[in-house]
């Protein structure tokens, strides 16, 4: 067992009747990592998490945690704890009874019990809440109690099932930061399930993007955003403009492509393999395209007409029709000096420009 394979999911499948909720997934998660499973609902992320917790057993494959095979280990014997989406705070117990629920076996004295629970309450900044009934807690407080309850025995792995989903936006953003710093403080491996890409990008060391029971790409947030490996990932994370292109020549770390209306480009293929003559996709993020009403000098430039514009305060979104491209090109620009582009029913000419390294080359389909 190495630290890189602290959790090792090996060729795991889970079928519910004919539904393949998880389909031959292999993932290694390192010790101390904040790892996210990201995907739309029904992609298998929650099933995978529940298999880690032991509430579901794989139809095929094996899961190892810290070198131990989990297939014969019941949930109550696993070195993992979970924060449930609903928090599952026991309604008949108060806050300290909830947090100290798992201490029964230790047969602690009253004082020891209280001090253990007190430590956790300090950690989640709820000191003084010991005797509160569960129904007196707000959503954020319930979430913290669930967290403390799961961490009190210092599990090897903490599993979190969309724990921020029920909170309002402001609280959610605050909890994202707190959760991240808490994870650094306790040094426990976190496996986090979410459908919210922003949440995953903010908190995770690495993210597995999942779809239809399989993962599409496992990478750091930066890599996922800047260098998606396929169209689905590029589409799911952020917004992406796609242009049909054909590969003309593959050289040393460079590929020349003909992107039709955008002209000929020289781009980095990343770690994907392309061959000459192959059909491909050139992808550019909206914020990597510059927009101006006058033709800029130098760089790759293409002319278009403004289709629609949305003013968002700090930035604007523009949709520009470019001859020969089916969908309007999305452009996102900081509102430093772009307000003139928002004129009433502006149907005018605009110029789009970008640099070579803004372009990501992807396989078609």
């Amino acid at each position, binding site marked *: 067992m190495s630290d890189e394979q602290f959790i090792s999911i090996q060729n795991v499948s889970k079928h*519910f009747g004919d539904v393949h909720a998880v389909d031959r997934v292999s993932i290694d998660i390192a010790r101390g990592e904040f790892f996210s499973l990201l995907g739309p609902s029904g992609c298998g992320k929650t099933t995978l998490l529940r298999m880690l917790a032991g*509430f579901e057993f794989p139809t095929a494959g094996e899961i190892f945690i810290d070198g131990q095979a989990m297939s014969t280990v019941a949930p109550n014997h696993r070195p993992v704890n979970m924060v449930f989406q609903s928090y599952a705070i026991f309604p008949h117990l108060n806050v300290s009874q909830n947090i100290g629920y798992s201490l029964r076996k230790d047969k602690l004295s009253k004082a020891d019990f209280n001090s253990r629970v007190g430590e956790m309450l300090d950690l989640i900044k709820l000191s003084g809440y010991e005797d509160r009934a569960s129904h007196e807690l707000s959503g954020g407080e319930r979430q913290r109690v669930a967290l403390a309850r799961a961490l009190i025995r210092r599990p090897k792995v903490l599993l979190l099932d969309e724990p921020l989903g029920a909170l309002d936006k402001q609280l959610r953003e605050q909890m994202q930061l707190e959760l991240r710093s808490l994870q650094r403080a306790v040094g426990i491996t976190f496996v986090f399930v979410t459908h919210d890409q922003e949440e995953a990008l903010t908190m995770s060391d690495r993210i597995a993007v999942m779809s239809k029971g399989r993962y599409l790409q496992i990478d750091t947030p930066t890599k996922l955003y800047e260098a998606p490996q396929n169209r689905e990932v590029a589409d799911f994370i952020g917004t992406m403009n796609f242009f049909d292109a054909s590969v003309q020549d593959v050289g040393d770390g460079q590929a020349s492509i003909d992107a039709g209306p955008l002209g000929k480009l020289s781009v980095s293929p990343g770690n994907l393999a392309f061959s000459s003559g192959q059909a491909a996709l050139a992808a550019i993020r909206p914020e990597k395209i510059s927009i101006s009403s006058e033709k800029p000098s130098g760089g790759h430039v293409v002319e278009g007409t403004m289709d629609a514009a949305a003013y968002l305060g700090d930035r604007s979104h523009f949709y520009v029709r470019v001859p020969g491209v089916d969908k309007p090109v999305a452009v996102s620009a900081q509102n430093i000096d772009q307000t003139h582009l928002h004129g009433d029913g502006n149907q005018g000419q605009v110029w789009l420009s970008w640099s070579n390294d803004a372009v990501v080359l992807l396989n078609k389909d």
Partner: protein
Amino acid sequence: MSTHTSVTGPRFGPLGIYAITYLAFVYIPVMFLPMFSFNDSVFIAFPLKGFTLEWYRALATSDGLIDALYNSVKIAAVVAVLATALGTLAAKAVTRYKIPGRGPVITFIMTPLVIPGIIMGIALLVIVNMLGIEMSVYTIGLGHLLVSTPFSMLIMVSRLEGFDKNLEEASQDLGEGAWRTFWRVTFPLSVPGIIASLLLSFTISFDEFILAFFLGGQDITLPVYIWGQLRFPAKLPVILALGACILAVSFVLVTFAEWFRRRGVQIKTSSGV
């Protein structure tokens, strides 16, 4: 609730009057039993002749009454516990696990609710007879268990559906096995349902007549005792007194049971989370 006043109507309209009338229709006939049990006349007829406790005094000295009462209580108590145990297990199985054939299994367990009592009675009578088992309080209990279990299961299903399945998973996740999880989480959260089930099963068995009539042999329960006494017109006032007592006990038990049951359900629907 108040946001939908446009589709609701006045509380005290014709419908309200109807509701009160309906309640009267349900309650008044039954109320004649206690009323005439205090009437100082052997004839159950108007006008009332005056107040007496004579019939209640006669109850205490009635032959066989104490035996019947003892049988009824004994059967009802055992049936209440067993029906609640069976109902709880079955309710947990169908609410917590995805099991194939869930629908047919539930329908099967619920069939005693829709089979005429007489047919259940004779079917059990036939099998008990063929197995050569002597009819007694035990065979009555068997029959009562059969009719109480579906009710217990219904009560427990709605109770178990009333709280988050994740609570039990959380307990397991926090290191407790199935048995401990039951005692630390499932049981305390099901207590209102369990009490309701115990009280209702007790009352069903205590009041049940048809199965006890067919399956009792020499052992008789209170309702069978009453049935036997109905042949003697002179004993009617005593039976009224007995009936009034049984009604009073049943009312108290059932009111408690319903209160526990429905309060539990209401808490679940009103708290949301």
